[in-house]
């Protein structure tokens, strides 16, 4: 996050917290506070491709969640997060994930503040999820998001749900710093972000979404107009300093679709979008299935089989992306034991380049309120032409303990 937005967001957030605490003092009945504290350590098997990258970074993170019901239909939520990383300055960061007031009636619902919205259906790649910015330094899978300032109106009807969003401030994507792993060959300097819109970070983005359930199908359709969440990385070359990349955020119009469908024992999922505004229009899609084998081998264990495909028509080299023509396969084993043990094994293979990512995520509870997570990823046969090639030397194992307090 640039210094500018930091200045802008945090006083507002401070005011929100203050208002929150004042409101709390009036009524302590339905007040909840909890959160998580976690430590994690990485072990990278090879030295990084670039100098200053460490092999055994450790980090600690905590979050606090406060929830308060002023009335049955008037709720306040707050979630603050902070991580300290031993090596990467950019990964040592904080964020207000949530700071919103929600009011609802039987016929409509409105929330204002920093919110979180998820759109999508598939398991491997989240193409259409656009409201919140990705907190890229937190997780490679893109599932960690920054709190987005928004006014969010929801109108549920018998024939579907209509939602309207006004997004007055833009959040910049986080990128690993010069000491961080999983980075581009040249580091990204987020303080040099450039915007197509003259309003910069203060362009007001708008979105409208319709979602409904028809028979065995859930589907959502949206239009988004505003600042692209995924920047283009441009080379910045000043004679006085070493070359770096800087993010360039363009103005786009994006129409997106997501669906989940039950057919027999299968779950089918799909996402697609069409985007205009970046030198040429383009489309991307991902779709696949999930099939669960229940009680395998006369045990309580369930095995989910996942197959997905992603295609992005920028794969002609116009604007390379990691997921341009890839096939994904996953196995999800739920042991169904007391400790909720589970293992996810996934393979992502670029059909054209042959680059392959293998990922394993294993997790179980230790006692009542601690979870242990073991993740590993291996980047195999990474083709130099594949944008993911910069991860070639980042094979890792990560061990994490999370205490839910």
């Amino acid at each position, binding site marked *: 996050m640039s210094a500018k937005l930091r200045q802008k967001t945090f006083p507002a957030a401070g005011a929100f917290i203050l208002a929150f605490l004042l409101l709390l003092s009036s009524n302590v009945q339905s007040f909840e506070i909890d959160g998580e504290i976690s430590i994690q350590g990485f072990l990278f098997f090879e030295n990084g491709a670039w100098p200053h990258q460490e092999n055994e970074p450790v980090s600690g993170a905590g979050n606090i969640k406060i929830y308060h019901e002023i009335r049955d239909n008037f709720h306040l939520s707050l979630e603050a997060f902070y991580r300290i990383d031993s090596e990467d300055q950019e990964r040592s960061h904080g964020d207000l994930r949530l700071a919103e007031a929600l009011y609802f009636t039987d016929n409509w619902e409105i929330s204002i503040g920093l919110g979180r919205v998820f759109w999508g259906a598939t398991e491997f790649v989240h193409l259409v999820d656009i409201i919140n910015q990705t907190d890229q330094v937190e997780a490679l899978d893109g599932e960690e998001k920054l709190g987005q300032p928004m006014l969010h109106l929801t109108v549920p009807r018998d024939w579907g749900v209509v939602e309207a969003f006004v997004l007055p401030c833009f959040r910049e994507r986080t990128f690993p710093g010069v000491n961080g792993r999983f980075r581009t060959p040249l580091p990204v300097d987020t303080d040099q972000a450039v915007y197509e819109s003259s309003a910069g970070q203060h362009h007001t983005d708008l979105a409208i979404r319709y979602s409904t359930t028809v028979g065995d199908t859930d589907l959502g359709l949206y239009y988004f107009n505003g600042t692209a969440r995924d920047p283009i990385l441009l080379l910045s070359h000043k004679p006085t300093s070493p070359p770096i990349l800087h993010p360039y955020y363009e103005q786009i119009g994006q129409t997106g679709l997501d669906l989940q469908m039950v057919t027999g*024992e299968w779950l089918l999922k799909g996402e697609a979008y069409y985007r205009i505004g970046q030198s040429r229009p383009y489309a991307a899609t991902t779709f696949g299935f999930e099939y669960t084998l229940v009680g395998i081998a006369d045990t309580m264990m369930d095995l989910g089989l996942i197959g997905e495909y992603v295609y992005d028509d920028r794969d002609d080299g116009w604007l390379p992306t990691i997921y341009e023509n890839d096939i994904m396969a996953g196995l999800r084993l739920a042991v169904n034991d007391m400790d909720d043990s589970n293992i996810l094994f996934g393979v992502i293979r670029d059909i054209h380049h042959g680059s392959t990512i293998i990922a394993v995520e294993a997790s179980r509870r230790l006692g009542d309120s601690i979870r242990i997570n073991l993740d590993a990823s291996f980047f195999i046969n990474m083709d130099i032409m594949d944008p993911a090639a910069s991860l070639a030397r980042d094979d890792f194992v990560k061990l994490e303990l999370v205490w839910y307090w």
Partner: protein
Amino acid sequence: MNLFFSKTLTASFLFAPLLFVSPVYSETAEEKGLAIAMEADKRDEGFGDYTANMTMILKNRQGKESRRTIRSKTLEVPGDGDKSLSIFDTPRDVKGTAFLTFSHKKGDDEQWLYLPALKRVKRINSRNKSGSFMGSEFAYEDIASQEVEKYTYKHLREEEYQGTLCFVGESFPVDKKNSGYTKRISWVDTAEYRLLKVEFYDRKKSLLKTLTIEGYQQYLDKYWRADSMNMVNHQTGKSTTLLWNDYKFRTGLTDKDFNSTSLKRVR
């Protein structure tokens, strides 16, 4: 999963009215089994909606215990299966996770899972009904709304169970392909049509689990709900106990408390 019970387990497995037992008309065992199921179902009609809290205690063979706490809300839907919402409070790592189920008399139930960390609503395939519910000895199909239409029935006999005269009958899942059972044998008391005990037979037709239900209390002078349900798995030695409390009927829930919008603001 209807967590628990729209037509409760109580009303569920059910068995029937003596009304039909006349010396003139000779009712078949199948007809009598169905009649008992329908009568039990009928006796639970009209509850409207209710909420309840539940503690689920998992025990393994060595006696190690693990607890989950769940709040459930159920809405009766005239002419169709119930709608229900179950929200996890503990373990803490799954706090706020919620299941929304629309059960149907005919065809598959509809199910969604809400994951609070991602604010994501995922569709679930309800045909995976034989799977374990949250690591417990209860399968999804055990806790689902027990609509009469989901089974066929056969009355066996009447006998005393723990001092109470019961109808004993078999029920067979209509969805044979996806159910984990070939049959269930149920004990339902002849006075109030409350389900007291169920034996579950697996796909190999051997006894898999026994459910015993205790502590029935009557609400609104009509609807019976149990305080305790204990499921023992004879093949693994593991067991799960559900302890129910704080039943509240006719709390004013409507369809609007059971849609994707309300699911996303669940607490």
